[in-house]
């Protein structure tokens, strides 16, 4: 994963305190950051909060980003940390699990399946959920997922496989 020289120049400028350079670097990372936080927290407002906090933290910690390191896995690692912290205090997302559907008509099978799948994903332990969201939802390659989670590629592969297996099991159980 080579770093483009142009990006390095921007990064250097950002590290030296150029806020515009930082914002240019950050801009393409916001959407994946939002999707990562959304996949983990399943709440778009909470996802936006997590990305905002991560962006501010990234700005404060930019000098810790080592030369030659890529910014995307570093930033997504910060977003993942924010999600871990936010998860326990987001009572609203817990409430939503047990909240009855408010649809006026009977929900369609696909809506039910979506709810079941989100519940199944939420029930996975945090590491498997993170690996699945990064690899499946954000389409990131396994080596980048490993860089974000601080694991080996082999370990990430295992988490994705076990996560997928558990999702299937939970879906089967919910269908009786």
């Amino acid at each position: 994963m080579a770093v483009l020289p142009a990006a390095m120049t921007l990064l250097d400028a950002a590290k030296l305190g150029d806020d515009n350079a930082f914002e240019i670097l950050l801009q393409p990372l916001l959407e994946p950051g939002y999707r990562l936080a959304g996949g983990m927290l399943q709440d778009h407002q909470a996802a936006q909060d997590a990305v905002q906090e991560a962006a501010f933290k990234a700005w404060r910690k930019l000098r810790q980003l080592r030369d030659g390191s890529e910014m995307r896995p570093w930033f997504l690692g910060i977003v993942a940390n924010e999600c871990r912290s936010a998860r326990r205090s987001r009572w609203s997302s817990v409430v939503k699990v047990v909240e009855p559907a408010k649809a006026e008509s009977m929900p369609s099978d696909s809506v039910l399946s979506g709810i079941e799948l989100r519940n199944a994903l939420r029930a996975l332990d945090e590491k498997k959920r993170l690996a699945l969201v990064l690899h499946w939802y954000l389409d990131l390659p396994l080596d980048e997922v490993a860089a974000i989670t601080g694991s080996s590629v082999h370990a990430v592969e295992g988490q994705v496989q076990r996560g997928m297996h558990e999702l299937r099991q939970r879906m089967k159980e919910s269908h009786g």
Partner: protein
Amino acid sequence: MDNERALKVELRRALDEVLPPAPWLEAAVKEDLRRRRSRGRGVGKTTHGRRVWPQPPMQLVAGALILLVAGAAVAAVLELRNFTPRSEPAALDLGAYQAMVGGDVNRLIYSGSGIDCTTVQANCGGPGRDVLAALQRFRDDLTRSQPPASMAVINSLLRRHLAEGIADFNGVLAAYAAKDQVALDRDNYLFNAQGEWVSAITTSISQSQQGTVASYIDSVRAGKQAMATCNGCRPLQLAGQDCTEIQTVRCEADVVYAKLDIETLESALVNVTPPSSLVEQDALLQRDLAQADAAVLALARAQLTGDQDGFNAARASLAQKLPAIDADLAGIVGG
């Protein structure tokens, strides 16, 4: 392989359903950054060559009272169970203890209604004192009460976290009075860290049930699994691995993971109380966990303030406690 692809497509669709496009996000993040940068400049400026506040809080919170909001879930559960909150100290059975904790959580939520301590311009001062009083009442109730034996350790831990929370919230009030936004952010962060723990544990207390040998061991086994794969505990256990610099993203992740995994095990023990044959082993495990909990709390505080020596001491203390916890767990669930 086709099944895998189908599941992947389904998962993407399921997540897209709850995650609308956010075209406003870029503008919102930039605006938030500009606002916070403008007050963040100057943070960490030195006086006499020393940083006053070396690093910002790990997480600048959206509001000072997540604890109170989070507690709403607990209160709702307790109300559903039709408990009558009361706070008279006595030798309490499990139901009465749950009712007392529920009553205190309710009081805390009520006292925090309409309060905002996020910024020095917000409405924090007067209502903040009501919150402080409710926190103190909560702690005092725990101090005066005699909890059921299965809750004795968690009761004293809850008291300790509340005492820390009170100190942190006093810091919030002082920072608000001094119009010191940087200190306000820091103390809000610290206060909310306590709030997250209190929220998780009081939720477990509200759901706690007397276990059988089988259900208790199942619950402990789930907590053991979290500890076995604890991404944070293990690197922290090995000096020289991770956290050579304590304020890096990787090191923060280690501490957050350790905190969550220890909290998961603590919650598991509270959720299902032990049958009489396992009471002693449960108490031993809870006591060791309580010490690990204190070590993680010290790690987080040291990390926040850039206190390398404090961090190293807390790390050594955690490393010492983890094998004891492993042994306790093995004694209960085997292997």
